[in-house]
């Protein structure tokens, strides 16, 4: 779990501006969004390197999902800049994000319950026949292939996804994200609906995707889910970034302290949300 790209004590952290290392695929700087008077995300910054898994942790309501939705295009940020592969990116809606190779697995899964698996996998990017009609047969064939890799026992292709179990729905959502050669993957609580065995499967999948060079944001409120998978952790509290740390430089208890108290341990790089220690 050593991360060669991110020395633990280096100051070129996600916090602050002007860091532009060559292999950083995502740099989110000073991003804010508020709903009414609530500062859901308050000047938060975070970056992600190629092939890196960054776990974004925090309480329910800490702003992690909202923060990451600025990247996936679901929300439009009020302030801040986002750079993708070093270039400033314009992300105003989910279509823009997808054009940059950013795929998202939402906490709610964002599946259209009334249509079948293939239709969900290709929603917004349907395969068409030469006559400009939907190529359902080809889409279903592709769906069978990709689902066969993720979840070999999955057979219910003709049924609307409403009829599927929680784990099956989750694998549909994951399959949709990896079907289109994503470069950057955002997984918002990907194991929330899963049993232990399926959770382990998702863990394996994340390792495999990482070895393929895909960069992953892993969002969770439960440190146990992600600590072994991540290269780095980033902790949010009350919409602010408490700090980031390589998992090799901190213990679980220290990360818990970041989550609960906003207290930054010595191995971490404090952000604007960190409370003064002592």
């Amino acid at each position, binding site marked *: 779990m050593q991360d060669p790209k991110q020395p633990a004590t280096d100051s070129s952290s996600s916090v602050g501006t002007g860091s532009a290392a060559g292999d950083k695929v995502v740099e989110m700087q000073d991003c804010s969004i508020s709903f009414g008077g609530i500062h859901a995300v308050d000047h938060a910054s975070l970056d992600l390197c190629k092939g890196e898994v960054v776990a974004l942790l925090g309480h329910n309501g800490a702003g992690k999902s909202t923060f990451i939705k600025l990247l*996936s295009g*679901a929300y439009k940020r009020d302030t801040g800049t986002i750079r993708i592969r070093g270039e400033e990116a314009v992300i105003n*809606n*989910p*279509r823009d994000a*997808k054009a940059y190779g950013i795929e*998202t697995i*939402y906490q*709610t*899964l*964002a*599946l*259209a*319950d*009334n*249509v079948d698996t293939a*239709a969900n996998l290709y*929603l*917004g*990017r*349907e395969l*068409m026949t030469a006559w*400009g*009609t*939907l190529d359902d*047969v*080809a889409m*279903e*064939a592709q769906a069978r292939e990709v689902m066969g890799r993720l979840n070999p*026992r999955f*057979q219910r292709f003709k049924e*609307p996804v*409403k*009829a599927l179990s929680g784990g099956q729905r989750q694998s549909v959502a994951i399959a949709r994200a990896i079907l289109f050669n994503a470069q950057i993957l955002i997984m918002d609580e990907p194991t929330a609906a899963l049993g232990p065995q399926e959770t382990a499967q998702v863990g394996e999948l994340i390792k495999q995707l990482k070895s393929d060079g895909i960069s992953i944001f892993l969002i969770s409120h439960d440190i146990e889910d992600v600590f072994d998978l991540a290269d780095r952790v980033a902790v949010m509290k009350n919409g602010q970034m408490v700090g980031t740390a390589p998992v090799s430089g901190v213990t679980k208890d220290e990360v818990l302290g970041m989550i609960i108290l906003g207290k930054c341990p010595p191995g971490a790089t404090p952000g604007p949300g960190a409370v003064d220690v002592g």
Partner: protein
Amino acid sequence: MTDASTTSSAPQGARQSEESAVTRFLRATEVDTRMLGMLGALLLIWITFHLFSDGRFLTPRNLWNLSVQTSSVAIMSTGMVLIIVTRHIDLSVGSILGFVAMVMGVTQTSLLPSVLGLGSPVTWVITLSVGVVIGALIGALHGYVIAYLAVPAFIVTLGGLLVWRGAAWWVTSGQTVAPMDATFRLMGGGPNGSIGATASLVVGIIACIGIVSMILVGRRNRKRFNFPLRPMWAELTLIVVGCGAVLGAVAVANSYPWPKGIVKRYAQANNLEIPDGGLFIAHGIAIPVLIAICVGIVMTFIATRTRFGRYVFAMGGNPEAAELAGINTRWVTMKIFILMGVLCAIAGAISTARLNASTNAQGTLDELLVIAAAVIGGTSLGGGIGTIVGAMIGAVVMQSLQSGMVLLGVDAPFQNVVVGIVLVLAVWLDGLYRRRSV
């Protein structure tokens, strides 16, 4: 689906062995049980009316009239399906129909004759085009306000209900416009507005060829991708039932003769001698019915085979997911309402042609019939669920009830009572069915 059962997991296999013969039949033919239930209900309604009206309901004459009366509502109900599927509603269709019908009436009676002369063969084309364009513009306006200005569809179309009814009055200050162009009138049915026995038979045969080739193409596609095939007997059953229904309908239309007076005039005009038993000239399929069937086919194609249709259903199932999947949901919403406006114009043309006049009250309360047809036809008000063919059958159910009650001499106010109760009952039963099946 037999192939699927061998590969599916154990619990599914166990469930399958307990199935009865009926369930196996339904599974093999992949027929929608809900649709079957609706057809059963329709048959029940027909037989009941037939028995209570001393055998006047299931006659070629009544069924032919029923088909013509249904056309206008059936056409609009296909658009209403898409609207309700996306969790909207359109209360203005009757008023749009009234306004567009009025404009079309004025176009063909006062505007075009002064340019083209009376009885020009292109009058009807221009009139219909004007209607369609105006319908589309009205729909676009509604759709824009709903999608981009975020005013609820209920309010926008409630406003439209008042606005377009008033606008219809304003076109001629309330005067009725009549008579219509002779060619235009063919769209309304009647002896002249029907295609006759031979052409009906040809249409029927083409439809049968269509059914057979659709099943063959489906089978070939499944083979190509190694999907489970329907058993051969199930395919054959579908072909026989489908073709039987088509040819049966043609036979009914072909056994309804022209009235004696019209036959006499026709014989005089063509120097024919009327034989002793009287000359039998069949109506055949009425043109409005053909239009409605074409609209149904096109709309089914749009709903199931195009990207637009897929987006409509995905938006209905989960609007947020559709947005997150990168679908331009606002533009899709606007397109749905444009389509609805166009369908209102076509329906308006048919009802104007049938009446041979444009009146200020045309299409009044049609919105309720159209919504009822869509809902009885299985369109869920919760969004995401509905079929075009279901809505069209729903329109037939609604019209059968009304026409049957007229035959039985039920008073008009009481007819509304029955229709209202049936609507509520149908939605309740539908809810029961869905809760059980999911």
